[in-house]
């Protein structure tokens, strides 16, 4: 009986305590309310806030560091460093026809801003990204507007020009370099051999694993097999698990490129350091996938890839990077 009454007393007391707390909140509501009437007043956004990106176009050197760092591959960059593309936006020694980010994919991780050598891409204060359509989630950072039909037409239309510029430059370079080519080749081969010896198997694995679902060739990894002065071998494993890719021997036979990109041209590519794979012009396909820009992987910038670039396909490494996550 005692516990019965004590329990009733305790519960009642705690209820009164609780109601006292809510009462104090009720009468002091003015002081305590934390609501911000959002569209009318806005909260202070800290300066480090990671909202949508903005690009200082004039500083961009088209180095693709940002798109390579992106874990979800949602940055699409196209342009040329070989000359001026008409109608394009001018960066630092580069013409950009496209710099767009798909905010349907972006996870606002800031990884793209960190490696940029010229610190020209930033995450801004803008967080309000409402859209009723998926394709409106693609932002054009060159104009700070939605990447629309017209932008895309422009980008696709300029690919031939970019291609042409690249070929032009390559031709001139090739002529110039002809004399020095032999000596350079020897040096590069030596270096690559060392690397291959050090890296051994795992490197081969990397070559395979880097793109389990690759459709197109990747210029990066083949740098090693190229030590044998062979065309890059791309174990084209469609969705092969990593292990399988790793098992592939390094000097794999150069396989015919998979279906999506049939027109593999082997191009003479005695390039200097940090060459950009010039994008060939793809057939103006409807599929966005195929239109994805060239985002060359970082490794391709390594010196010593005097190997034959058999993969100067339009969507060289860009799509491959993209696809490997899919």
């Amino acid at each position, binding site marked *: 009986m005692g516990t019965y009454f004590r329990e009733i007393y305790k519960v009642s007391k*705690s209820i009164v305590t609780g109601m006292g707390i809510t009462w104090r909140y009720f009468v002091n509501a003015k002081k305590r309310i934390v609501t911000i009437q959002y569209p009318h007043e806005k909260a202070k956004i800290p300066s480090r806030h990671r909202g949508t990106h903005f690009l200082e176009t004039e500083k961009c050197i088209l180095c693709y560091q940002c798109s390579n760092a992106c874990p979800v591959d949602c940055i699409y960059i196209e342009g040329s460093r070989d000359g001026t593309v008409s109608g394009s936006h001018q960066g630092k020694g580069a013409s950009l026809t496209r710099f767009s980010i798909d905010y349907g994919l972006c996870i606002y991780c800031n990884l793209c801003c960190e490696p940029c050598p010229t610190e020209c891409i930033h995450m801004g204060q803008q967080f309000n990204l409402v859209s009723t359509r998926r394709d409106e989630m693609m932002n054009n950072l060159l104009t700070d507007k939605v990447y629309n039909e017209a932008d895309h037409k422009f980008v696709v239309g300029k690919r031939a020009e970019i291609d042409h510029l690249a070929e032009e430059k390559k031709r001139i370079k090739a002529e110039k370099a002809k004399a020095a080519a032999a000596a350079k080749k020897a040096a590069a081969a030596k270096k690559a051999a060392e690397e291959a010896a050090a890296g051994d198997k795992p490197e081969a694995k990397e070559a395979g694993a880097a793109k389990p679902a690759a459709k197109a060739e990747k210029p990066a990894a083949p740098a090693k097999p190229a030590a044998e002065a062979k065309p890059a071998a791309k174990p084209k494993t469609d969705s092969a698990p990593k292990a399988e890719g790793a098992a592939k021997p390094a000097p794999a036979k150069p396989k015919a490129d998979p279906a999506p990109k049939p027109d593999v041209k082997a191009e003479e590519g005695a390039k200097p350091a940090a060459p950009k794979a010039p994008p060939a012009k793809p057939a103006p396909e409807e599929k966005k996938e195929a239109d994805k820009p060239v985002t060359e992987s970082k490794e391709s910038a390594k010196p010593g890839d005097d190997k034959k670039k058999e993969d100067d396909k339009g969507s060289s490494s860009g799509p491959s990077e993209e696809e490997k996550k899919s």
Partner: protein
Amino acid sequence: MSPSRDVKGSKTKMADTANMNTNVHEPPDVRTEELLLNMGPQHPSTHGVLKVVAKTDGELVLECEPVVGYLHRCFEKCAESGSYVQAVPYTDRLDYLMAMGNNLGYCLAVEALMKVEIPEYADYIRVLVTELNRIGSHLIAVGTFGLDTGAITPFFYAFRDREMVLDILEEICGQRLNYNYIRPGGVAYDLPEGILDKISTFIDHMEKSLEEINNLLTYNGIFIHRTANVGVMTPEVAIKYGVTGPNLRSTGVKRDLRKLRPYSIYDRFEFNICTGTGEYGTIGDCWNRHIVRTQEIIESIKILRQVLNAMPTEGEHLAKATARKFRPPKGAAYTAVENSKGELGFYIASDGTDEPWRVKCRAPSFHNVSVLPALANGTMLADLVIILGSLDIVLGEIDR
């Protein structure tokens, strides 16, 4: 309620219920039917997209089974197909309420592979943000547990305080939930100016506010009656199911990785391992799980105070070796951290390339939710919700 009811049979047998010791007549021929309830994946109190299949007899839960996997998004595979740094944002999304802890766990494993030295300053920042995040995570647990019992107002108070944590973390790293702040080798950016003052203001506020929440919720008579002696978990059961974190500690087992195997610089700080107090109910019940969380908020505040006192004013925040793309040597490492939900472990195997060869995540919530049938079978439907809430699961981590 009597857990001794025949669970398998379709007809309810009352013959052996404890309080009927004399000869019991078969109940009159009332046809009872079991009701199969699919609680979730869309249900207000499954804390995400969890589905609980419950076989009920009226209000009684005869059997229940959690069905997970609705949020599966291949975390491990994703982490294996990018560079080491690129996997960090993916870890944010495991236990999205404690993303700093996830970052930390993953980065410790990468650092163990790399055998890289972390700058001391970075270590302090790590502890600072992780403990702040732990407070935020526990506040959600406390608030939503109140919500499960039907008390809506404490939830708002808890969220107000959590907002303060998020504001601070946003100022530090630019995001409120998916921080991607702790990186292999340190932290991504230095602390912004004046943030330490804000933190100390916050922890002063937090202490007072927690007392209020305790008075409003924890020590409320109805709340105690709802949660005490409900879903009692014995240490044996907890260990058998691999339950960790506050859920395990509530049973009286003193296991806190921060003390047991101090990682980062946790060995420098004084704090207690909170266990179930048994003040109300039995040790290991829902109320004790709740009180452990509120106590841990206080312990985190203690740690934060010590960090603020001992912290060097400036220093390097990211080790040089990991500033760019890096390749750990061949090998494997497993590290575990004490996250707000329990032991979060990362196993990473490297083959010497710049991408991990294998990443395996040991997510505490996965083990914690698996104990649900052991606790909830034979209780009432309302208790099932309470038990589920008291386990404080996060589906992002269960399904990965």
